[in-house]
């Protein structure tokens, strides 16, 4: 059943957030540290294990996949509920940071390709 997949996703989400919350408390921060990342890692490992043991049913999987395809729409809703007026005062920050950060990452591609090739 699809709900099994949604439940697995919910479990990963909550466990990830519990870990993130605990980390936040360790570092005396009023927030969740990397909870989403931990939840993702957990789901990746579970998914891998489930596929290896062949216990992951297609229906279960589709319950998780539904939510994964919902992420762009959710992000659209998120951007529609931000305080954009206040952000626009820093418009050039967004444009410059977006372009320069991308350029810096592009510049490193050949370096890593060479590294990967030399390893072979």
């Amino acid at each position, binding site marked *: 059943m699809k709900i099994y997949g949604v439940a697995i996703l919910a479990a990963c989400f909550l466990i990830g957030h519990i870990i993130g919350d605990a980390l936040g408390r360790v570092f005396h921060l009023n927030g969740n540290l990397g909870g989403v990342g931990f939840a993702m890692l957990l789901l990746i490992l579970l*998914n891998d294990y489930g596929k290896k043991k062949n216990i992951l049913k297609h229906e279960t999987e589709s319950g998780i996949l539904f939510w994964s395809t919902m992420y762009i729409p959710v992000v659209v809703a998120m951007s529609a509920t931000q305080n954009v007026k206040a952000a626009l005062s820093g418009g050039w920050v967004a444009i410059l940071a977006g372009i320069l*950060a991308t350029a810096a990452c592009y510049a490193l591609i050949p370096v890593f390709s060479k590294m990967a090739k030399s390893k072979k």
Partner: protein
Amino acid sequence: MEELVKLLDKNGLVFAFLVVGIIMYAAYVISKKLTKSTIPGAAIAISIGLVLAYYGGNKGIASVPAFSGMALLGGSMLRDFAIVGTAMGASYTEIKKTGLVGLLCLLVGTVIAFFVGGSIGYAMGYTDAKSFATIGAGACTFIVGPVTGGAVGAGSDVIAISIAIGVIKSIVVAIATPFVAKSLQINNPQTAMIFGGLVGSTSGVSAGLAATDVKLVPYGALTATFHTAVGCLLCPSVLYFIVDYFL
């Protein structure tokens, strides 16, 4: 009219599904018809969202009566839930094949984007550690930005900037990739994975690779998916502490 607003407010989440669905449809039509799919539909949809938010209040469009449900659909709970779901698109065994170089790409790509983005924010007046971290995280992807901003407690205006940075990055990646693919030799799975890991914007990477060579899309998207996880893991924690220590 008043009755309708009341009804829509009461069923806010359901109405939000409808609103976002319409935005997505419009965005994908614009992407296909006006830009020949060079600008990803997702990037256009997010831009439409940001424009709508501009006409709202301090909670964006959710400040407008009848649209209050958008705050629930776009709130941190459903957002994080959906993002965790995307991890299904990445396979552990595939990641292992790329080996340490792939892992290194993810780390270096995150750190470079974080500090380049954050430094530009710093140079332009966002000098506190929370804003530096949020703007830098936004330079990773438009997901890492708000996740980091929420974790460190940055203001909504800074979070909006971080989303804008991520959106601009995904547009730049989608448009520029086909043009630079040859000189950067993005023509094989391994380089595609390195590219995805370093650049990290999943929508930009998949759109950019689709315009370059469709066969490379899954490889680039695979590492790009992990980029968000690594960013969500490192930006609000280790990288934030480093910034907090120096600022």
